[in-house]
């Protein structure tokens, strides 16, 4: 009887059923997270014994020109991708929200890049950016512009990576906005109609303010994603030319798995993590104060 009661206790079952989750969580997330923190205070190439160096990695980071370049590349990439990507996707979502017919077809088209792998996307865009035979420069030549050597140009490599990233992420943001738009109660528009509001005033005074919550969300997610950009840079430019596209994750990868500087790479990881956390928390804090409730 006692054993039977034991079998029906919630806490016992909770323990058993959570065990697979918990083991996975412990080994592959919690331990690595803590380990990365300690590793960032060490010097280790996986071969020679590990050395405790205190803050040396962090101090070195801020004297390391390549790191500063990578930090700048990440900021450039983020500033280039996030605002533009959000504005375009917002307009597309509003347009799609009005479209009565063919919503599914348009949605499918915009969603195709989202579900494709960054590797596939990068490969086809490399070909599109090909300076001599690429599609991009062909279209530019049609309007009389001689296109640059995109991916090997110090000036144009980053814009090229940014264009590709915006193109890939548009559909995702658009869908989030679309969901937000469809969540706005129709009564607000009806009230505006009664007041005789035109289409644009409705958009400006009803849609935009009521989309605030969604917009903050999209901003946070876009920021997090753009801070983690790696695949496209690895494939399309290898961080070049002259480190102009070497974003933080790319430099992290190089340090860890090319130069085998595990401690230094971990320090980069924690700088990246802190930056992201800081930005996200500030945004969310600000959001809590300004949140639109309807």
């Amino acid at each position: 009887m006692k054993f039977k009661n034991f079998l029906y206790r919630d806490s016992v079952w909770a323990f058993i059923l959570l065990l697979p989750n918990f083991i996975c969580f412990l080994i592959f997330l919690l331990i690595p997270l803590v380990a990365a923190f300690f590793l960032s205070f060490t010097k280790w190439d996986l071969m020679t014994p590990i050395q405790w160096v205190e803050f040396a990695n962090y101090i070195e980071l801020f004297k390391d020109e390549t790191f500063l370049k990578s930090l700048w590349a990440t900021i450039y990439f983020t500033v280039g991708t996030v605002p533009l990507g959000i504005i375009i996707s917002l307009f597309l979502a509003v347009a799609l929200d009005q479209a009565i017919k063919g919503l599914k077809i348009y949605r499918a088209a915009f969603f195709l890049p989202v579900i494709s792998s960054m590797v596939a996307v990068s490969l086809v865009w490399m070909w599109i950016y090909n300076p001599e035979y690429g599609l991009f420069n062909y279209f530019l030549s049609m309007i009389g512009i001689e296109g640059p050597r995109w991916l090997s140009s110090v000036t144009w490599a980053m814009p090229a990576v940014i264009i590709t990233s915006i193109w890939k992420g548009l559909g995702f943001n658009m869908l989030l906005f679309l969901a937000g738009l469809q969540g706005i109660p129709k009564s607000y528009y009806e009230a505006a109609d009664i007041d005789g509001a035109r289409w644009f005033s409705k958009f400006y005074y009803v849609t935009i303010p009521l989309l605030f919550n969604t917009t903050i969300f999209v901003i946070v997610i876009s920021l997090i994603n753009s801070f983690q950009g790696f695949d496209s840079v690895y494939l399309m430019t290898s961080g070049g030319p002259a480190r102009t596209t070497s974003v933080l994750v790319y430099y992290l990868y190089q340090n860890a798995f090319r130069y085998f500087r595990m401690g230094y790479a971990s320090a980069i990881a924690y700088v990246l993590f802190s930056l992201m956390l800081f930005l996200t928390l500030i945004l969310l804090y600000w959001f809590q104060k300004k949140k639109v409730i309807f």
Partner: protein
Amino acid sequence: MKKMKKKYPSKILIILLYIVLSIGALIMIAPFLWMFSTSLKSISEVFTWPPAIFGKVLRWDNYLKISERYPFGRFFINSAIVSFIVVVTQLFTSSLGGYVFARLKFRFREILFVVYLATMMVPVHVTLVPLFIIMRYLGQIDKLSSLILPNLATAFGTFLMRQFFLTIPTGLEDAAKIDGCTPFGIYWKIFLPLSKPALAALGVFIFVGIWNDFLRPLVFINKINNMTLPLGLANMQGMYSTNWPVLMAGTFISLLPIIIAFLLAQDFFVKGVTLSGIKE
């Protein structure tokens, strides 16, 4: 979903909207069409100016050439194995965890859940180096298991399933409890069958993520025979850097499973992929 069209934009505006949307859609699809058209050309046809949509002959044999110098079929099978195992196990662990957090009462449940949730904020890159060291220590480097193991359970899946289970009314399980069902029995016989739509959406989300994953394979896998599609393609790019037709053929094939699944179940895809937008 019932949308009353109360916004009354004018006719001209609607036509304008359709034009903008169509141009946008074309820009979205064009690279895929370009990929496909390139994959059917010969190398000399690729390097012509101005670019043509199709070459003289459609060279379907480019699709046979992709496995000439690289085990492309192997890449495909590896991707399929990893994706299948990860999707199935993660659905299982997520629904189990979600059920526990939604329904079972035990001490520290709320705190445990919050801690679990907080870990969703951790980017994969932060844990990459220690994870690599752990995999080396466990002897998993260069094995498919190194790609499977860290993905067997995620906080996000658990969170999502919990949210879903919270919406299920308690009446059914009360009856089952009186009939002497254990908590696992309730999960297995009541909650799991009821959660098919949520599982499908989560499954799609997991599948897209794992099928497209590049960073972890890049770090954990070295042997050509153990590579997944994205990593294999990246390697082919190094070799076929100028053979765009063959490279594009491989790229196109790598996208096919996802595109086909997407066309078959668009709504689940849209739901599944935008799941990450509803964190919190």
